[in-house]
């Protein structure tokens, strides 16, 4: 009996928690997800695999609402995500019930990260195999925030971040191209980052925008329109690069 009480996540001789690192591997295999913070909104974008033709895509929402003012996107094990999201939703309502105030983005991020950490230090359980991107507006100050958590239970705030498949490429792109934006510009930046690693097209991306009014999921037509704008801008930039060479 005693052997089964031992935590599965134990230290290796050189100080690693292998289970947590393997969980991060699971995240790296998950679909790409990106979050970009603007001055008046935060945009979440997630890759959608288009190979499943018979599946009813409405039943697989990758960007979910935790409360009126908080949304979450994740990369990794979707089943684990369901459990974590459910607990977070309960905590949002529980917080409202006990203190009659909505949660701040930081509070609920801390809660989710705390939950993820608990599962790295308990007997007989494995860590959650997902990283989350949590966005929202602070209900009191109206400041937009973007936070990221990972299987180890760490969390921090970001101006823009990516997780999941090819997150390094997306993060590099964001580091090069990030600047303070608002409204449509923020949406374009997020989609541009996602298009670095995802096949172009509205049916391959799910995008949602969190504003002070709430979460708005963009439909395929809207995404296609923005993608078209981005392609046109790229083409124009290419042409501009070639044009000076022609003058000389």
């Amino acid at each position, binding site marked *: 009996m005693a052997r089964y009480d031992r935590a599965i996540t134990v230290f290796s001789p050189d100080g690693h928690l292998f289970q947590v690192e393997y969980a991060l591997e699971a995240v790296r295999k998950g679909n790409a997800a990106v979050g970009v913070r603007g001055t008046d909104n935060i945009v979440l974008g997630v890759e959608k695999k288009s190979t499943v033709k018979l599946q009813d895509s409405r039943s697989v*929402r990758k960007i979910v*609402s*935790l*409360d009126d003012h908080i949304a979450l996107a994740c990369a990794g094990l979707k089943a684990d995500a369901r459990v974590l999201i*459910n607990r977070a*939703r*309960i905590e*949002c*309502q*529980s917080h*409202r*019930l006990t203190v009659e105030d909505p949660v701040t983005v930081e509070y609920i991020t801390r809660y989710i990260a705390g939950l993820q950490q608990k599962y790295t230090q308990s007997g007989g359980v494995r860590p959650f195999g997902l990283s989350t991107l949590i966005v929202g507006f602070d209900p009191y100050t109206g400041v937009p925030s973007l936070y990221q958590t990972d299987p180890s239970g760490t969390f921090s705030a970001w101006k823009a971040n990516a997780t999941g498949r090819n997150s390094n490429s997306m993060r590099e792109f964001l580091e090069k191209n990030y600047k303070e934006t608002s409204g449509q510009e923020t949406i374009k930046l997020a989609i541009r980052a996602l298009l670095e690693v995802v096949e172009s097209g509205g049916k391959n991306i799910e995008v949602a925008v969190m504003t002070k009014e709430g979460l708005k999921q963009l439909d395929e037509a809207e995404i296609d329109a923005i993608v078209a704008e981005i392609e046109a801008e790229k083409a124009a930039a290419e042409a501009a690069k070639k044009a000076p060479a022609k003058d000389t």
Partner: protein
Amino acid sequence: MECVFGMVGKDFALVVADSSAVNSILVHKSNEDKIMVLDSHKLMGASGEAGDRAQFTEYVQKNVSLYQYRNNIPLTTKAAANFMRGELATALRKNPYMVNIVLAGYDKETGPSLYFIDYIATLHKVDKAAFGYGSYFALSMMDRHYHPNMTVDEAIKLADQCIEEIRSRLVVAPQNFIIKIVDKDGAREHSWRRTTKD
């Protein structure tokens, strides 16, 4: 001395509640809102033990919200009523909630509905309901003047007649009343009937 009553009209439902918060002979305040807006299209008028009233109604409201986030669709009025009844029934034989509730809601598919839920977990779907000493007068007035498919004006007139009866015939009548209405455009406050200006 608390009084809550409600009725169903053509495409709406009405809930009226007194707004006094009383402790033995002292009136703490006379603008207490006892009709909670449960979600966009539901109203819950509650009377009874003040602590239980706040606790139970807030608990129900948060659970209704949680259901909506989990399932991306709001609860029907019937479902919310049954959920409340279930909670009251579970607590009944341990530590009962001393709260009486009139639940009014508007569903797109079924229209307006009204539910009578008392503190011992009785649940009835009704056209008119009332709780408290005022119910003796409100129910009698509604029995006499209520008819199905009333317009908003007719219903408000009937509510005013009930309030008038309560004010004139109940020895410790509440000073102010609040009226809330729910229809296809949502649940909202309709008006107050004041005798004091708290």
